[in-house]
């Protein structure tokens, strides 16, 4: 087979892949964030059984490679007769994965707020939920921004795994182009540059936030 020359059209194709990478990242982050918030609430529940059950689930998810979760969702649902589109499978898998990690990150932030803050709120007759919403979460939120943004970088890079179920995001797009142009170094070099262009601003932002939070508390 003759190698095709690498053209601007290929770059366009990869840019399209970038869009899907961003879309998948956003899906993972938004739905993973919503689910993760719910799981975080379970992790700090008043009821021991709920805390333990949610801990077990989180530990299991964290102990399984994302790739395996992805296969489990993609092929697993197929067994039950659901033909899931690659983006759905990848989205669901990334959501499960992100939820487990975000839940733990955020739980740590909630627990980093001194217990006495909770006590003070309760002594003013606030309910547990009111205290959480008005006193604890606003303080935890500030602590959570840097590690959350840091995790977003992980999410963006992890979306490359979705290429194995045939979802054409950036990595898959690069692979397809490489298969016809055989310009591996160039093609994957460009793909790497695109990932870097997405992730580096996020990391830089996270670092700035961290610095700011160290300086002032409001």
């Amino acid at each position, binding site marked *: 087979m003759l190698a095709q020359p690498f053209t601007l059209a290929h770059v366009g194709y990869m840019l399209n892949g970038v869009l899907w990478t961003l879309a998948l990242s956003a899906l993972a982050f938004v739905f993973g964030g919503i689910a993760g918030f719910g799981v975080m609430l379970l992790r700090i529940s008043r009821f021991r059984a709920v805390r333990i059950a949610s801990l077990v689930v989180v530990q299991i998810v964290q102990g399984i490679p994302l790739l395996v979760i992805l296969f489990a969702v993609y092929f697993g649902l197929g067994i039950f007769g659901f033909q899931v589109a690659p983006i759905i499978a990848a989205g669901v898998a990334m959501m499960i994965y992100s939820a487990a990690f975000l839940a733990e990150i955020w739980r740590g932030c909630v627990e980093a707020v001194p217990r006495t803050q909770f*006590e003070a709120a309760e002594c003013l*007759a*606030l309910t547990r939920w*009111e205290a959480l919403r*008005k006193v604890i979460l606003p303080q935890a939120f500030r602590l959570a921004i840097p590690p959350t943004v840091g995790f977003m970088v992980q999410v963006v890079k992890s979306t490359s795994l979705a290429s194995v179920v045939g979802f054409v995001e950036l990595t898959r797009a690069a692979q397809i182009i490489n298969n016809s142009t055989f310009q591996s170094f160039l093609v994957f070099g460009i793909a790497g540059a695109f990932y870097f262009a997405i992730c580096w601003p996020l990391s830089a932002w996270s670092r700035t936030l961290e610095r700011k939070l160290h300086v002032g*508390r409001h």
Partner: protein
Amino acid sequence: MSAVIELKDVHKSFGQVEVLKGVSLAVERGEAIAVIGRSGSGKSTALRCVNRLETIQSGEINVCGHPVHDPKLDVRKLRLDVGIVFQSYNLFPHLTVEENIMLAPVTVKKLRKAEARALAAQALARVGLAEKAQSYPEQLSGGQQQRVAIARSLAMQPQVMLFDEVTSALDPELTGEVLRVMEDLAKGGMTMLVVTHEMGFARKVADRIVYMHQGRVWEVGDGSMLANPQTPELRAFMAHDL
């Protein structure tokens, strides 16, 4: 029945360690009681039991008609009647002074913002900090923060105020301003239970002084009790303190 706070033979243990060994005490409406005693004698624990921050093993506690010992107690209703101020202020750092004070009236009592703001202004004036409404806690001195904590509690219009060594974390020159606020409160007829190391305050402001020793109420009396202890333990405590 006129006692606003009543403890009857209260026992409290942390694990195997019995910290309160049968504490009984009755506080009348409008009384200011100073609780003194060595470190570890159970003063804070007794105070925390009164507003159910701790649950007791046996005995009875009644506060403003709430059976605090009852496991089915509506803790929220109790806390509406009982204010507490801690040594460590515990202001909410992400809120301004005014917001700190408005939070509970708005959230719990469902007051409108404007009403709550007026209430906050009133409470701040009472502790002499009207001009600090828009400051954040970290911009205030320890004494000012503690007075805001008192104002925050007062804004809920409690029947009873509990104070746990509220001046212990303060530099000596800042304790006076906080003690003065508490003295005004006592003069205004607030029912107060004050755990303190400030013997001057106990002598001058308290209607009665309770000396706790090893988880028991060891001696109760008025200001003269400090000059004239009846038990060797209080005598030793006073000698050590002076």
